[in-house]
């Protein structure tokens, strides 16, 4: 996973952020210090619900 700096509090804005040992990435992402470069693919259509066949009547 790659990250880009968006706050000058942790480095030069626009440069890649390489987390050191023990760095809490979630905290930096949650509060706007870095962004993830991973593209989230949310265009895939959801699968339709499966339907069970009705039981045969005797």
């Amino acid at each position: 996973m790659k990250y880009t700096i968006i706050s000058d509090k942790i480095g030069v804005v626009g440069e890649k952020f390489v987390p050191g040992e023990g760095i809490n990435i979630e905290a930096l992402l949650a509060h706007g210090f870095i962004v993830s470069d991973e593209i989230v693919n949310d265009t895939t259509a959801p699968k339709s619900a499966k339907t069970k066949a009705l039981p045969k009547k005797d």
Partner: protein
Amino acid sequence: MATSTYLSNPTFTCNSVDLSDQCRSATLSVKYDALESTAFGSTSRVYTAGLGDHELNVTLLMSYSATETYATLAALVGTATTVILKPSSSATSATNPSFTLTGTFLETLPVIDAKYGELSEIDITFKGGVYTVATA
């Protein structure tokens, strides 16, 4: 005579975030449990180092602005992170060592400490973690 007067140069980095401009004081205490190894034949008590139990106490000005004190610490309370202290902002060297606690735990975060007419400050403590010193 060797003295160190801190005016504006020390740096404090918490979870990669430079909080030097909000930091008013910082004390890193390196401590090891003293395990007594006194045995027959000893004429005095002697000790050997046990587990490290290091601690960093920091006083910070509280700011709720984006990417400042609160934003840096809010998600860290109850978790472990890495903090770095340096006597000066210049390059790390033997005369400007970089002190690091890796995997240190932030147990408590005073989210507001309001006194009328005064700048808000908070005192926080990072407990434990692996202590290292870099000189280059």
